[in-house]
C-alpha cells in the first residue's frame, strides 16, 4: 500500500519534470524561430538556452565523455547516500562539512610537494593529500571531543575554520609561485563537472564502487554501531575500529566528490539524500537504497544541467536537485512526511471525537433511563436535545457542531423526527456501548489497582481510553470479571455509591 503510494508519487513527480523539460525544449524552438536571439529570454539574464540538438545529445548520452561523467557522478551520489545514512544515524552529519573543508590544505601541500619533486600535478597525488588532511582533521575533532571540555559542535567549527584558513593561506602562496599552474586547484572548491575527463570519471566510479561494496560488507556491523553503540561494545565488537572504518568511508566520499561537486557542497551529497530517504522508511536497508537512488538521480540532474548550460555551476545544480527531493520527501514522505503526519493526526482526532460523542449520548440516556421506564434493550432509543447535550458536557457550540459532523458523516447518529434532537443509529448503539465499556473498564482498573484518586480517574481515563487496543480490553475484562460481574457495560464507577462515598458526604 505504502509502496504503491510512493511509486505513484514518484511517477507523478517524474511526469511533471518530463513535462517541464518538454515545454522548455519547445518554447526554445519557437523563440529561436521568431527572433533568433534566444539568449535574451528570462528577463535579460545571460543564460544561453541550448539548441534542441544539444538537448537531444545530452539526454540520450550520445557523447562518450558525458556518458562517463554521468556514470561517475551518479555512482558518487549513490555512495554518498549509502555512507550518509550511517552518518545521519550516528548524528554526525556535520562532520562531513568539517572533513570537506579540511581537505583544502592537503591539496595545497600535495601540490607543493609534487612541484618540488618536479612531478607536476596529478589527480591521485592531490586526492591523497586531501584524504590525509581530511583524516587528520577528523582525528583532531575526535581528540578535542574526548580530551577537553569543548563541546562537539565547537570542536567541528574550530577544526573547520582553522584548517580552511591554513588551506587558503597556502593557496595564496601557491598562486605566487613562478612555476605553479594553480588554475586547476580552484576547481576543487566549487567543482567543475564539465571539465572532468573520462579518466577522472572512471576514478570516481571505481572509488564509489569500492565505498558501496564496503558499506554492503560491513552493513550488519555498521547497523549495530548506529543503533546501539554501547550494546555493540558490550558484545565485544571492535567498535573503535568500526567507527574509524565508517569515518574513513566518509573521508573517501568527500575526497572523490571534490572534483564533481566541489569542497563546499560535497557535504550535501552526504547529508541531503540520507535525510530525504528517512521520510520514506524506518527500515535501514530500504532507506539506504532510497538514499542511494536520490543521490544518483541528483548527480545525473547536475551532469545534464551542466552539459546543457555550461555557465551554471554543476555542483550547485546537483545540490538543488537533492534539496528538491528532500522537500518532496518532507511533504509527501510515506513514513513521516507532513501529509502523512497530518492525515494520521486527523484520523486519531476523529476517532477521539466520535468516542466522546457516543459516550456522552450513552451516559445521557443512562441518566434519564429511570424517568421513562424503558427496558434495557431500548435504553439507547431516546433522543437528546442538542442544546441539552451541549450543556450537560460543557461543550462549546463549535465543538458540538464538530462532533456532530463526525457522527453524521459516519452514520452513528441521526436527527430524530422532531428535528432538533439527536438519536443513536443501530450502528451507533453498538459503538456507544463499546466506547462506554472501554472507558469504564479502564476507570475501574485505575480505581482498584492503580491507586488513582476517584476525583482524577475520569480525566486519566479520558486520555488513555482512545488508544487502548482490543487485547488490552480483553485483559482488563478478565482482570475485572470476578469483581464486577460479567455485565455488558459495567456501572459507572464514578457514580457515588452508598457504601463508598456516603461517608465522605459527596
Amino acid at each position, binding site marked *: 500500500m505504502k509502496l504503491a503510494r510512493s511509486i505513484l508519487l514518484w511517477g507523478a513527480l517524474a511526469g511533471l519534470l518530463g513535462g517541464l523539460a518538454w515545454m522548455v525544449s519547445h518554447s526554445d524552438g519557437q523563440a529561436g524561430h521568431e527572433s533568433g536571439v534566444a539568449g535574451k529570454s528570462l528577463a535579460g539574464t545571460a543564460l544561453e538556452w541550448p539548441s534542441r540538438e544539444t538537448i537531444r545529445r545530452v539526454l540520450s548520452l550520445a557523447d562518450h565523455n558525458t556518458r562517463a561523467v554521468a556514470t561517475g557522478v551518479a555512482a558518487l551520489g549513490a555512495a554518498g547516500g549509502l555512507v550518509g545514512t550511517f552518518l545521519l544515524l550516528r548524528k554526525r552529519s556535520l562532520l562531513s562539512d568539517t572533513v570537506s573543508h579540511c581537505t583544502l590544505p592537503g591539496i595545497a601541500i600535495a601540490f607543493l610537494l609534487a612541484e618540488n619533486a618536479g612531478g607536476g600535478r596529478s589527480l591521485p597525488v592531490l586526492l591523497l593529500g586531501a584524504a590525509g588532511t581530511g583524516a587528520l582533521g577528523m582525528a583532531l575533532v575526535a581528540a578535542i571531543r574526548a580530551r*577537553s571540555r569543548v563541546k562537539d559542535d*565547537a570542536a567541528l567549527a574550530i577544526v573547520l*575554520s582553522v584548517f580552511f584558513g591554513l588551506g587558503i593561506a597556502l593557496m*595564496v602562496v601557491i598562486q605566487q609561485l613562478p612555476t605553479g599552474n594553480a588554475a586547476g586547484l580552484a576547481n576543487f572548491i566549487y567543482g567543475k563537472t564539465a571539465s572532468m575527463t573520462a579518466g577522472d570519471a572512471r576514478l570516481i566510479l571505481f572509488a564509489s564502487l569500492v565505498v558501496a561494496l564496503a558499506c554492503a560488507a560491513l552493513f550488519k556491523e555498521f547497523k549495530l554501531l548506529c543503533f546501539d553503540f554501547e550494546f555493540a561494545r558490550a558484545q565485544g565488537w571492535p567498535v573503535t575500529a568500526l567507527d574509524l572504518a565508517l569515518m574513513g568511508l566518509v573521508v573517501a566520499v568527500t575526497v572523490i566528490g571534490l572534483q564533481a561537486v566541489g569542497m563546499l557542497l560535497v557535504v550535501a551529497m552526504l547529508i541531503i539524500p540520507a*535525510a530525504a530517504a528517512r521520510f520514506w522508511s524506518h527500515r535501514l536497508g530500504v532507506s539506504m537504497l532510497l538514499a542511494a537512488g536520490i543521490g544518483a538521480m541528483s548527480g545525473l540532474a547536475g551532469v545534464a544541467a551542466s552539459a546543457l548550460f555550461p555557465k551554471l555551476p554543476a555542483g*550547485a545544480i546537483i545540490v538543488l536537485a537533492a534539496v528538491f527531493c528532500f522537500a518532496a520527501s518532507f511533504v509527501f514522505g510515506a513514513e513521516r512526511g507532513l501529509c502523512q503526519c497530518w492525515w494520521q493526526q486527523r484520523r486519531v482526532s476523529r476517532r477521539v471525537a466520535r468516542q466522546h460523542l457516543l459516550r456522552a449520548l450513552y451516559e445521557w440516556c443512562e441518566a434519564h433511563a429511570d424517568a421513562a421506564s424503558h427496558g434495557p434493550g431500548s435504553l439507547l432509543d431516546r433522543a437528546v436535545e442538542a442544546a441539552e447535550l451541549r450543556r450537560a458536557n460543557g461543550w462549546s457550540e463549535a465543538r458540538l457542531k464538530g462532533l456532530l459532523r463526525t457522527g453524521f458523516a459516519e452514520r452513528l447518529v441521526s436527527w430524530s423526527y422532531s428535528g432538533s434532537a439527536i438519536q443513536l443509529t443501530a450502528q451507533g448503539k453498538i459503538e456507544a456501548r463499546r466506547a462506554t465499556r472501554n472507558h469504564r473498564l479502564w476507570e475501574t482498573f485505575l480505581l482498584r489497582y492503580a491507586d488513582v484518586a476517584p476525583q482524577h480517574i475520569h480525566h486519566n481515563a479520558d486520555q488513555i481510553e482512545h488508544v487502548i487496543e482490543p487485547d488490552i480490553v480483553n485483559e482488563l475484562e478478565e482482570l475485572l470479571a470476578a469483581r464486577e460481574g460479567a455485565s455488558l457495560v459495567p456501572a459507572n464507577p464514578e457514580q457515588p455509591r452508598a457504601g463508598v462515598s456516603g461517608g465522605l458526604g459527596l
Partner: protein
Amino acid sequence: MNWSELDTWIVVTGGLISLACALPGAFLMLNRQSMLGDGISHAVLPGLAVAFLLTNSREVLPMVLGAAIAGVLTALLTQAVQRLGQVESGAALGVVFCGLFATGLILIRVASDKVDLDADCVLYGSIETAVVDVGRVPRVTLISGGLLLVNALLTWLFYKELRLVAFDPALATTQGFNAGAVQLGLVLVASVTTVLAFESVGSILVIAMLVVPAASASLLTRRLHWLLILALGFAGLSAGLGHLAAITLPGWIGAKLGQPGLGATSSAAMMAVVAGALFLASWGWSSLVKRFATRKPEFSAPRHC
C-alpha cells in the same frame, strides 16, 4: 620585514572585526550552535545576490538587510526542518545551508553580467586591498569599529538574558524570558556581523573568530565574564600575530625550500590559523593544569566509601 602604515591598518581592522565576532560567538558556543556560524556564512550568499539583483549596487544597507534576512531564514528553516520533520539538528542545518548556498551560487552565476560579485570574495575577502584608503581612516576600519561598538553595547545591555539563556534555557522560559527570541536575536547579530565582516576579511575569518577564541577561553576559565575577556584577548592577539605571520612566514619558509621572493599570504587566513594555534596552546595548558590538579587527592585524607 618593513612595517608600513598599511600593516597597522590591517591589524587594526582585523583586530576590530575579530573582537566584534568574539562577543556573539561566545554565546553561540555556549548555546551549542557553533556550526551555525559556518551555516550562516554560507547561507548569506543568496541574500546578498538578491540584494544586488534588486538594487544593482553594492550599497551597504541592502546588502546587510539581505544577509540578515538570509541568516534568520537559515535559523528558522533549520528549526522547522528539525521539528516538523524530526531530522537531527546537524543534518537539518546541513540541508538548509547547502540548499541556500547552492541557490546563491546559481543566482550569482546567472546574473554575473550584471553583478560584480564573486563567490571567492565571500570566502577569502581581501583585507589587504580593503584598507587602501590613502591619508585617512579606511572605510572598513570605521565599519568594523562601529560593529564592535554595537556588539559590545548589545552584550552589555542583554548580558543577564544572554547568560541565563546560554546556561539554562528552560529556567529562562519559566522566569518569563523568551529563550527563543533571545537566541534568534543572537543569530541576527551573528549574521549582520558576518556580512559586515566578509566584505573586508572573508567569511573564513568570521567563522574562526566566532568560535575559536571563545573555545580557547572556555578551557581556561569557568566564569562567564572572564570567558568574554579572555576571548577578546585571544581575538586581538590572533589578529596581530596573524598578520605578522602572513607577511613573514612565506618568505622564511620559501627561502628554506629554495623558493625565494615569496610575498605575503592572506592575512585573514593566517589570523584564523594563529587563532587555532592559540587554541592548541590553551588546550595544552589546561590539560597540564588538570594533570597537576588531579594529583592532589593522593595526599588528602583517605575517603570513606
